[in-house]
């Protein structure tokens, strides 16, 4: 499964708001992205399409709310903007972001190097992933 550079870049920016540890950490971001793509590959195509649309909407609405492209926002403004989107009365956007938040958390906390920071010892069985 492959995605556009814009989708990856914008998703990582949203993920950096949800999980600040991802900001400015290329190695962690790449590990996150690998997990995220793995999760998406198990979703029905319609769900993946909705997610891509959501990221596009987040990117486009930035012009309206911030008068700037989403990629040009600094970390503080980006966080305020995402906070605002979560509070929108439009359930498709807020609900979509909540679904995206879940995927981001599962992807991030699925990275073995992250486990130490939360004192999680990980699986007991030593097998490779499916």
């Amino acid at each position: 499964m492959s995605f556009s550079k814009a989708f990856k870049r914008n998703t990582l920016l949203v993920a950096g708001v949800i999980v600040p540890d991802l900001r400015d950490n290329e190695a962690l971001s790449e590990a996150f992205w690998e997990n995220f793509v793995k999760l998406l590959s198990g979703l029905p195509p319609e769900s993946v399409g909705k997610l891509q649309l959501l990221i596009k909407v987040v990117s486009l609405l930035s012009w309206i709310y911030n008068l700037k492209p989403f990629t040009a926002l600094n970390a503080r403004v980006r966080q305020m903007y995402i906070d605002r989107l979560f509070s929108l009365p439009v359930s498709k956007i807020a609900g979509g972001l909540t679904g995206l938040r879940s995927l981001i958390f599962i992807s991030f906390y699925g990275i073995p190097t992250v486990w130490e920071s939360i004192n999680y010892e990980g699986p007991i069985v030593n097998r490779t992933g499916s």
Partner: protein
Amino acid sequence: MRDTSYDIIIVGSGVGGGTVADYLSRAGSGLRIAIIESGPFRKKEHFNQREIDMTALYYNRGAVLSENMEIGVAAANTVGGSSAVYTGVSFRPPESVLNRWRREFGMEFLTAEYVNRSLDEIEEDLNVHELPEREDNENNRLFRKGADALGIPVKRLKINTKGCLKQGFCNLGCTSGAKQGTLEVQIPRVLKRGVTLIYNAVVRTVEENAVNLVVRKAPENTIPNEIEEGGHRLYARYIILAAGTLNTPAILLRSAKKLHVSNPNTGRYLTLHPAFNINGIYTKTITNYRGFPKTWYIDAFSDSDGFYLETSFYFPGVTAKNNPGYGSMHRDIMRCYSKMMSILILIHDEAEYGNRIATDRRGNTVIDYTVSDSVRKSMIRALQESTKILFAAGCEKALIPGSDKTPVLPEDVPDIHLHIAEQYLNLTRTPLSSAHPQGGARMGTTPKHAVTDISGKVFGTQSIYVSDASLFPGSVKVNPYETVMLLAKWVAENVLEACLH
């Protein structure tokens, strides 16, 4: 396929399908039976205890969202169905529920004698028992401590394990095969008896005596398909739909024209047993992700406020999802993961006509479910009581959806009704979850109110039966697998009777 004709085709290999196959294939039946499963065939060797991989055991990676995005349903898509990912918590249907089903829906076969005899046999087969208290992990001990301090009676859960290693990964598939679900008990048993199992096979429609399916490519690290990929049409004298509440009603809806059946109740009266899993932060490391996750429950609020509380514990990704917020505050919360105590809230929801499984224009399942006012009220009461238990157990913080502050602190308890209130419950931001979908093809005496008759046969058809939780006319209010098995046994007896005549 060499043999495309069977006596019985069962659609679904979960608790309903596996059980009905088990009863129908017993010695002497001589019936040619096939089970068709939409998910891949994974055995215990394929489970690796990693969330990122094992969410593949579920539809939509663990959350099929309702149309309004207020609730996400976790349902398994793998051989063994949800028994491959449940915790093995074993409840008999409450007597009050059975009374109602007998009285209001004509399910008079559910006599105390029939229910007890059937479930005695099922529980013995699955080694249903209570774990000794000395084996409880800290989460379970603290739950009891908190409830005891508040004078709330706790009860011991029964579970269906054999030789459990208490690794704590039940919901990601049991790597030791200790959990006596369908994957470990009924499926191996029926395969030995010659039942055919076809996996990665999605049933689109059924007709009288025929099933139309598409076999998809087997995912990596699962057992390869034994039949060629692509469309197939199989024939049988009887077809039993046991594809679960998300799928059985959808198959019936897609098949309505071919079956010449138009029953407005199909898909209706869906109940989801809405759930929240909440966490408190204890004063020291308690490592609750190890050990058996569930040993205690509370039903003291069931009649008065409409909820059960159970112990539970989840993995980091799901725990992160369950905790409120995001950003640096959330990161600080997750750094306390190994200090977390956790409680599962299960709300009783009433079967309402408007809540339903529908299909979109491509025929895919759509969950059309609105959280009722009474469920919201119950949820707030449950969140308040659970918060009190967390603090009575010794937690120093509580992470509660539906509250005006994160975290809630012990000093907030006297005013808990002000801090945890309906006005703060935003289900779009903090969706409920569900692992117990029920209804959609409810059993009853007349097609005016139901989809199947009392034998489990779909009204207006000659050969189509249902054998899963979609038969439930209302919520069973407890973890449902024993009730599904009970009804599957009954349906098997009726199909067997039909086969003989």
